[in-house]
Structures are given as structure tokens and as C-alpha cells.
């Protein structure tokens, strides 16, 4: 728990530093007609750094509770959600959302749920197909498309 807490504070402090850096570039003063662009970011950055320092103090002043941030048993299922979701995003970039989501839904149903192949095929093709009709046809909202859609003339 302690390590995760410290790591989070470190990342937040980094964010604070980046914000300060940019604020100084923009000008942190109070111009003739109100604050400059960097005024609020500067104080936000400063407040963040100070608050992080206090959190650090709290962590230091507390005895480690010995509770892990996440146990191995907990991490397993979390990753089982996170990795496929990341894969979906990567695949969407390459294949478009429709093909990617078909693969993603199909894979997930088999891997986690061990559903029958018939329902996998029906759902993993049916859901993206309905999505396609709703977005591209009814609402005329373009979603990311890949080679397959291009080949089909979209």
C-alpha cells in the first residue's frame, strides 16, 4: 500500500512540476486586465506540490499497515479485464472499431466465459453489426474504420 501511495504522489508531483514549467512560460503575473494565462495553472501547480508534500508527510508519519495495495488474487482478474481492453484499443487503431470489437467480444466470451461457439459467433458478429448500422447508417457518426470497411466502400 505504502509503495503505491508513494508512487502516486511521485507521479502527481511530476504533474505539478510540468504544470509549473508551462505556467512560467505563459506568464504567471497579473496583467492590466486580470490574470495572465499562466496565473491559475501556476497556483494550481503550486497547490498540488504542497498538497503532495503534506500527503508525503502523512505517509511518513504512519506506520506501514502491511496491507498490500493489491493482492495476487485480486490482480489476476483486474489484469484479465485490463489487458484485453488495451488490446481492443490497439486493434481499433489498426482494424477499426467494428472488427476489433468482434474479435474482442468473441475472445473474451471464450476465454473468460467459455461460452458455446454458436453464441460466440452470433454475438461477436451481431453486436458490431448492430453498432455499425446504428452509427454509420442511422446517426451518420463515423467511427474508426479499418481495411475491411474500406474494402466494403465505407
Amino acid at each position: 500500500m505504502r509503495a503505491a501511495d508513494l508512487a502516486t504522489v511521485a507521479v502527481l508531483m511530476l504533474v505539478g512540476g510540468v504544470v509549473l514549467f508551462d505556467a512560467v512560460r505563459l506568464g504567471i503575473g497579473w496583467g492590466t486586465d486580470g490574470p495572465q494565462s499562466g496565473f491559475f495553472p501556476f497556483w494550481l501547480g503550486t497547490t498540488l506540490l504542497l498538497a503532495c508534500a503534506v500527503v508525503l508527510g502523512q505517509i511518513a508519519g504512519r506506520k506501514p499497515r502491511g496491507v498490500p495495495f493489491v493482492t495476487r488474487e485480486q490482480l489476476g482478474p483486474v489484469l484479465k479485464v485490463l489487458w484485453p481492453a488495451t488490446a481492443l484499443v490497439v486493434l481499433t487503431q489498426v482494424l477499426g472499431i467494428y472488427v476489433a470489437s468482434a474479435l474482442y467480444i468473441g475472445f473474451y466470451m471464450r476465454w473468460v466465459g467459455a461460452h458455446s461457439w454458436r453464441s460466440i459467433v452470433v454475438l461477436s458478429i451481431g453486436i458490431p453489426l448492430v453498432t455499425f448500422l446504428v452509427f454509420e447508417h442511422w446517426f451518420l457518426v463515423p467511427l474508426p474504420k479499418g481495411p475491411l470497411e474500406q474494402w466494403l466502400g465505407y
Partner: protein
Amino acid sequence: MGFEDLFLGFQHALSAQNLFFAFVGVILGTIIGVLPGLGGANGVAILLPLTLRMPPTSAIILLTSLYWGALFGGAITSILFNIPGEPWSVATTFDGYPMARQGKGGQALTAAFTSSFVGAFFSTLLITFFAPLLADVALRFGPPEIFAIQFLTFSAFVGLGGGNPVKTLVSIVLGFILAAVGLDIVTGQLRMTFGVTDLMQGFDFIVAVIGLFGIGEILLSVEEGLSFKGVATGMNLRVVLETWKVLPRYWRTFARSCFIGFWMGFKPGGATPASFMSYSFAKRFSKNPARFGQGELEGVVAPETAAHAAGVAAMLPMITLGIPGSPTAAVMLGGLVMWGLQPGPMLFREKADFVWGLIASMYTGNIIGVVMVLAFVPLFAAILRVPFAILTPVIVTVCAIGAYAVHNAMIDVWYMLAFGVVGYVFKKLDYPLAPLVLALVLGDHAENALRQSLIMSQGSLAIFMTRPITAVIMAAAIVFFAMPAIAPWLRLLRRRRARAVAATPPGD
């Protein structure tokens, strides 16, 4: 106005054709409301080109009904999956989602829809009778007043306290920082973009919310195993009637939320602050505030009533003044122009049939809406019965589509994923997420309004004291901020007085 105008309006709104459009609008709107990322504004914009072939009155009925549908629909995913479909549904997740996890999803949905309807009906009544009168009040709200409202919303919510105060501060500041990324409209400079095109659009509130609340919650809940909690008990319409029996108990919350919603909605301010503020007040005035956040029915009633009241009220400045009271109304105004109507104060006089048809359709549209969504409550609640291995990838896919649709940008989908991890980590480390989200949604507006005010006053903060409306709102805000500090004293004082009263001999 006269009743004959309203009567004329109903003749339009109740024609078979217009009832049909209202029906279609509500269905489409509910779908759009359910899909996170596709808000009412997008939905209306998407349909706008198709309305050119319709008579203007039918067209506006279709679009407004779509908007009502989106307002109803936003609650569904908030309650079932902790994913707010719309910004104003964020506060609905606070108690709606815990209720769903306890197997009370049906009750939460019923309460949400019913509250939405009550709020909408209240606002519609006020619009019907006081529209032109209220329009002038809206005009009095310039940048200083808008800033004051944002400040009040924020202080009312943050003053509620709870949790580690320093970590709350970190969350707030982080929200404001994220809101500042992108173009600073006051100076036209790019902030914190470091030359990266993808950062220019900034961090959209919806993307952050889908990630922090939606994905984050999935990650958190699977720690206990790959399944969803909250298989509802009664899967039939009886749940609606049972919930209705309980709801009248909250009449005070209903009334308060209606007023807050209408008041915030009919001038620039909007449904999102209204829902947060209403939630804050409900908790403050509640006899058992500790139950809020744990699945309290009142915590669903308050934000939903206010959000829908505000959503309807946002139509008022649009009809009477041609001012968009919300982003959705802004798109509808564009529609008026495209249909060859001139939005603005003359609309009431020149196109009375259009205006009164629209007002009458607010009644019909919301009635159709509430009947429809209530009829589907068992179905919505049954979604949670879908096996985990099917539901999870579908939710994640819908989230990804929603995030993409906000700006048609792939980067937003990545942000969503990142926010999901942040949400998971923050929740585990006791950084509260709601203040972050509120800061993100208010940050941009609040900073602009503040700086516009300061430009107007040439850098003097006195502008917030000298304008009467601003001064009153600011004073209220400061009281709320100070609440955690004053409250113990007040309680002490009250107890003393009570003791003094008890001590005085009777018969005096």
C-alpha cells in the same frame, strides 16, 4: 399569454404525426443518452440535417423529444454500471450504483425516471405561465454572476466534507489542471499542450468520467472475482409501484430539487451544476447524511429531479430570447435558423403556433418518455443478469465508442483507458473522484467567467461585491465553504439554547 395559445399548441402537439415524432424522438434520445459520449447536443446535431424536410413544429418536437429521451437515458448506465451517460448523471451514480449493487436497481431506476419526470413537469409548468417574465432575469446574468454560481456549486459540494481533506484537495486541483489543458479563450494561447496536436482539444469531461467511473469501477469490482453484483430481485413492473409508494416521503427533496434545477437551468449554468448542488443540499438537509453514497434513494431523487428540471428550463431562454441555455439548445437554435425561423424574442409573437406547439410538446414528450422508460425498467434491470464474460466486453466497447465519439478522436479512447487505471488507483488510495470530476466540468467555465469579470472590472475583485446578485450568491458560497468550521459551533449553540429552554421553569 392566454389559454387559447396553449390550447392551440396542444392541437399541434397532439396531432398523430407529431405524437409519432415525439415517440421516435424519445426512443432515439434514450439510446443516445445510454451511449456515453453521445450526448443530447450530439444527438440533436446528428438529426438536424434530416429535419429540413419536416414542418418546423414537427422538427422541433422530434429534436426536443430526443433531448428528453437523452435526459431519461443518462440515468440508466449511471445506475447499472456507474457510467454516467451524460454529465448531469454523474451525481446519480453516487447512490444509484450502490443501490444496483445491493440488488435494488429496479427501485433506483424507477426513482430516477419518476424524479426526472417530476422535475421536467415542474419546469414545463413554469415555462408555460412565466416564460417571458423569467427571460429578463436570465439576461441579468453576466460573467460575474456565472462565476458566482459555479463557485456556489463547488463550495456546496466540497463543503460536504468526508475523507482525507488533503487528498480531496489533490483531486480538486488535478481536476482544475486537466480543465486548463488546451486553448485559453481569454488570451487565445495554448496551455500545457507542448506542441502536441492531440492535447489541443484538452481533456473532455465525458472521457474522464467514462474512464474514472466506468472502467475504474469495473477494475475495482472484479477484484472479488469475475462477476457482476446486483442481480435484481423483482423483475416485473411491481417494483415500479412499490417504489412509487415510498417516493412521496421525499416530497421536500422533490420540491427543493425542482427549484434548484429550474433556477440553474433557465440561465447559463446548466443541468450539471444543478444536479450536484441538489445532491449536496439533499445530503445537508437529510436526517441521516451518512447513508448518502451507500445507496440512499433520496440520493437518486435529488440529482435526477434537478437535472431534468434544468434540462427543460434550458429551453426557456432559447424560446424567449434566442439564448442557448445549454449546448443542446445551442444546436436547436441552429436548427431554427435552418428551418427559416428567426430565433429570439420575436418568435413568441411571429410564430405563436410553433412556440406553443413546442411548449405543449414538452408535456406530451415527457409523458411519453416516462411511460416508456418505466415500462422498460424490468428489462433494464435484467441487463445485470447477462453473463459477465459477455457484458464486460460489451460495456468496454460501448465506453470506447463513447469516448471516441466525443471528438472523433482515437486519443480520447486512450485517455479513457488511462483514466480507468487512475480511477482504480485513486479509489484504492482514498482519493475521492467526485471533486475531481466536478472541478473538471466547472473549471473551464469558472476560469473564463472569472477572468471575463476581471477584465470588465480591470482587475478589481470588487466586482463580486458590488453587483447585488453576485454578492448574495458569493456570500452563500462562502458560508458553505466555512460550514465544516462553523457547524460544531452552531450545534453547540443550539444545544445550549435547548438546555436553557429546558431549564426555564414552566408556566413563565
